[in-house]
């Protein structure tokens, strides 16, 4: 059974087809690497998955129910999206960590925060750090932690290791692999060909808004 399914999905903006009649089935537990040249529609594909935009034609089905039959906020809580350029809001790290709890009217779960800080090698005292003084890599890891505070069913990652050094890239890859093993479905857009084949079970290549190939790796 498909967890997420694209049925003849197109997305046009200003007359240009950015996604052109894509049909795709994502199974539960999949780890799909998405590759393709710049401007091929990879990020738009992730935005469609997270329902930040809607297809201009076709439909997206999640757990056998059309996206438009879900409450958008509930849907986005199950399908988490980590952007290519991490955006940390407010003044300090804690404001970013508190946000996912406050929108659910929940108290902060310190245990879960510590768990993720350890997983992504962020020191515990970073909670009160000013977001402006963080490095690009630190910002990206905090953004990942913010996305993962509540385990999503599907995790969408858009070039999240592009600002990281090799050591931190390895740490993030390990963390994502372990989340995938625990049952999170992963859709990871990357430019790194080696990375795309390392852990994924499928490799999706997009070109000109169309699926060029979908290779089963393992």
């Amino acid at each position: 059974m498909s967890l997420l399914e694209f049925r003849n999905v197109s997305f046009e903006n200003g007359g240009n087809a950015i996604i052109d009649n894509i049909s795709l089935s994502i199974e539960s537990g999949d780890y799909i690497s998405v590759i393709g040249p710049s401007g091929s529609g990879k990020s738009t594909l992730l935005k469609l998955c997270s329902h930040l935009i809607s297809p201009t034609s076709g439909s997206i089905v999640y757990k056998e129910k059309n996206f438009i039959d879900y409450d958008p906020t509930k849907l986005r809580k199950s399908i988490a999206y980590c952007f290519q350029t991490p955006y940390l809001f407010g003044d300090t790290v804690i404001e970013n960590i508190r946000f996912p709890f406050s929108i659910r009217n929940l108290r902060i779960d310190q245990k879960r925060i510590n768990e993720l800080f350890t997983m992504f090698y962020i020191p515990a005292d970073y909670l009160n750090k000013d977001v402006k003084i963080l490095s690009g890599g630190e910002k990206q890891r905090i953004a990942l932690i913010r996305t993962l505070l509540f385990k999503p069913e599907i995790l969408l990652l858009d070039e999240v290791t592009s600002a990281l050094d090799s050591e931190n890239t390895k740490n993030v890859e390990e963390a994502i692999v372990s989340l995938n093993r625990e049952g999170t479905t992963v859709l990871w857009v990357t430019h790194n060909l080696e990375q795309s084949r390392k852990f994924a079970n499928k490799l999706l290549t997009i070109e000109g808004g169309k699926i060029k190939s979908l290779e089963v790796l393992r």
Partner: protein
Amino acid sequence: MNASNSISISSLLIASSLVLVTLFFSYWQKLKLEKEIIISVIRAVIQLVAVGYVLEYIFGLQNPLFITLLLIFMAFNAAYNASKRGKGIKNGLMISFVSIAVGTIVTLVILIFSKAIQYEAYQIIPVGGMIISNSMVALGLCYKQMASDFKNKREEVETKLSLGADILPSSIEIIRDSIKTGMLPTIDSAKTLGIVSLPGMMTGLILAGTSPVEAIKYQIMVTFMLLSTTSISSFIACYFSYKGFFNSRKQLNYLK
């Protein structure tokens, strides 16, 4: 100068020589503004004479219904102007009218109940005019800020939406920023009152012969009422208008 005396026509004619000074500078410096200066002066005189007679007629009317209709007319015009500033704001005219009307009603009711003013044309029309025009300027600033924030802070809003936030928590920083922008000029001018400027109302009262100490009381009332109106109007307008930047699927609309 005996302030309580009215200005005579001959005094006005002599004062009109000041226009010649402006014309002289324009001619001397080749600013090519002579024609515009003459037209603007003629227009100002005709408009002011006309409004003087209209106001004299209106102030003579004691019908509360007529005063109310006039206030509604003023609020509608102000709402129309404010909504023109808010390109991208859906239902801008309606939102502006409601915001200005509520701000004006609340402020006027407090002023009337505190017996600071009475519901009579000669008091309500000028005071209402000040309130409404101040709200109009505040709303224009709010809308401009909001439209530019939704364009420039798209990333922030979409990040919050993608975390599963509803549109209000995703836009709250923009809403606060816009309300602040609407209110700041009134707060700033309140801070510098008496130091940088003697405002129009106070100057007018002093010229009309009221003692400065008495005129200050009116100015304090005006300051309070403008602060109250801008905050109420900006708050209502921003909380109503942010929703227009999203579609029914809680997605941020594309702004041109």
